[in-house]
């Protein structure tokens, strides 16, 4: 979701990643004849299977990642209460990434080499994911990444349980075009997720025959939006497409409202604001504004009623669930299902078994796409309500196939390289 590389650097990084990937492939190729890997015997020895949990529990990203860790712990507890997997209990090893990307890589190495965990659930920012990616590929580990992100990636050692761009951003633009208008104002934080997302949006809006009035970026942690709001008033767009991240959202929505602009005057659609963030912004400041995700706390499925009830019972009635929290919960269940099917925690076997696995998640029926290790998910546009929750106003009738490289869209040609 978040990345701090420049586009050029990202290209270089991709080059480096593919180089390490090649090296990794060679290494696994050599080791393929070994039937039992030391990692497997250690991670599933005795009565427990060790899994890693790697999130920022301190530092600036703790705002988002603590709840995601809570949700993973809840899933583990539930699975253990139901008898565990392969007759063994899951034993979580929790590490703090501390919002520092080198630290994430360090801890990932520790989890894989020292604790010899069977799999890791972790990361939030794209920067942290990019930092641990080579570690997982070199050590043939397995990472479950729970957050929507900018796409253009499919590592053989990562399962992506959040949305790819075609499961969040692309359908949102289509919907806005049909229902709200053709003139877009793009506002985002200044790093790669918003910039990549806006590159996609610009290509799509151009193909649909719309107009991008302006593209504005503010540094992460930016606190004063009076000038941006003034620019929005001056350019009179139909929609503000918001890819701001973190605290800036609070400042933006508070100051937008102070300037006398409500959802009736101007539509905004955000892709990084979920229930947890709405709480910090204040429901009154965001009432009626739109968001795009795959899951809301109000999503009407029997599984979700159970999920929300259990989450609140475990962590407090004032807590809310949201998309990344749910995607992280699903990740644990999907991994457990794959292990059961494979009859082993061996990474290669689990990956093979995971293909096509289905799970009745709180968001609805989801399925692992074997081709790119992303998830088939339903897409939902929602509106923030007075009580700080999000009401679904539109959804796809079926889960959408993940397409991280946007190969199935003509207008997206040339974006993925």
């Amino acid at each position: 979701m978040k990345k701090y590389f420049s586009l050029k650097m990202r290209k270089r990084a991709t080059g480096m990643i593919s180089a390490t990937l090649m090296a990794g492939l060679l290494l696994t190729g050599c080791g393929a004849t070994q039937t039992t890997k030391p990692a497997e015997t250690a991670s599933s020895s005795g009565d427990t299977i060790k899994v890693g949990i790697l999130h920022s529990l301190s530092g600036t990203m703790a705002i988002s990642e603590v709840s995601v860790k809570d949700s993973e712990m809840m899933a583990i507890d539930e699975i253990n209460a139901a008898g565990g997997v392969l007759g063994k209990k899951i034993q979580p090893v929790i590490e703090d990434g501390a919002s520092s990307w080198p630290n994430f890589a360090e801890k990932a190495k520790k989890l894989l080499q020292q604790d010899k965990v069977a799999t890791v659930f972790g990361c939030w920012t794209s920067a942290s994911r990019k930092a641990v990616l080579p570690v997982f590929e070199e050590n043939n580990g397995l990472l479950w990444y729970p957050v929507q992100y900018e796409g253009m990636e499919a590592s053989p050692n990562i399962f992506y349980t959040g949305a790819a761009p075609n499961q969040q951003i692309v359908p949102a633009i289509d919907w806005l075009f049909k229902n709200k208008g053709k003139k877009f104002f793009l506002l985002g934080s200044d790093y790669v997720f918003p910039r990549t997302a806006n590159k996609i949006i610009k290509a799509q809006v151009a193909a649909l025959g719309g107009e991008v009035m302006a593209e504005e970026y503010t540094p992460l942690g930016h606190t004063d939006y009076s000038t941006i709001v003034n620019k929005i008033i001056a350019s009179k767009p139909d929609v503000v497409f918001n890819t701001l991240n973190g605290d800036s959202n609070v400042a933006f929505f508070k100051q937008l409202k102070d300037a006398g602009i409500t959802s009736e005057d101007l539509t905004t659609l955000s892709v990084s604001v979920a229930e947890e963030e709405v709480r910090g912004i204040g429901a009154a400041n965001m009432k009626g504004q739109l968001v795009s995700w795959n899951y809301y706390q109000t999503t009407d499925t029997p599984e979700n009623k159970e999920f929300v009830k259990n989450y609140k019972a475990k962590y407090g009635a004032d807590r809310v669930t949201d998309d990344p929290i749910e995607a992280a919960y699903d990740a644990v269940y999907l991994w457990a299902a794959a292990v059961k099917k494979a009859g082993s925690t061996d990474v290669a076997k689990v990956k093979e078994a995971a293909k096509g696995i289905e799970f009745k998640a709180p968001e609805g029926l989801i399925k692992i796409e074997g081709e790119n290790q992303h998830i088939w998910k339903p897409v939902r546009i929602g509106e923030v309500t007075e009580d700080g929750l999000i009401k679904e106003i539109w959804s796809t009738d079926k889960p959408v196939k993940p397409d991280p490289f946007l190969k199935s869209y003509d207008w997206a040609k040339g974006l993925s390289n």
Partner: protein
Amino acid sequence: MGTYILQIFNGISVSSILMLAALGLAITFGLMKVINMAHGEFIMIGAYVTYLVQNLFIHLDKSLFGLYFVLAIPASFVVAAFIGFVLEGTVIRHLYNRPLDSILATWGVSLVLQQLARSIFGAPNVDVKSPGWLEGGLVLHQGLQLPYKRLFIIALVITCILGMFVLLYKSKTGRRIRAVMQNREMAESMGINTRRVDAYTFAIGSGLAGIAGCALTLLGSIGSTLGTNYIVDTFMVVVLGGVGKLIGTVAGGLFIGTANTTLEFYTNTSLAKVLVFLLIITFLQWRPKGLFNISSRSLDE
């Protein structure tokens, strides 16, 4: 036309916020030459105190809710000042004349305070509802609205600066503070208890940061990292304005605030920040001590 008027107003408003955040720092930095990296966390403390006062009023009578903010301002001053007083007595006073150590130590303190806030209030941001009488704005004409919150902050800043002016230049306490600022040894030999002056000046500086935090709940996020969002700009104001002078903070804040918003309007946010930085660096080449500075006769300068 309306756009430009609003832009001028935005410039003044951003300047006022910067002045408020920097006022406390200018005093402590000027007096003790301690680079207090934890200044931002006192802003955070002020914001959380406002949150607590709000919660208290939610449980009280509904009709009184609008009043909570009036009470939150002195409350955040008192709490932040008290924590500042304790911090000065335990940590800061060992760091006088050790600028590098003070940067590291106060940075550590800032991390500790942030994590403490996270443990007490939880990691996600909390919501402070602004009182009803600050909602909306002064409508000049169609599409041109000056938010009451920003007008209120400007008034609050003027009050704080006037208050500090009276304290520093019209009271006995202020005379002592200025004496210590100008020449510590001489002040000591004149019988001023510099230890005590240090302690309460630091407390006042921290308290002012607390008020800034209280005001900022109207405009931005309330979370453990709130202070870090402001600390860089705050230091810039102090360095540009010159340490130890109120007028310096006002001038520095006004320059950075209006330059930032104006350049942001004509270019974009990131570029505006870069240009402002460049302007400041160039200016400091010419006047390394900032816009205003205390002329001192001490030999160590």
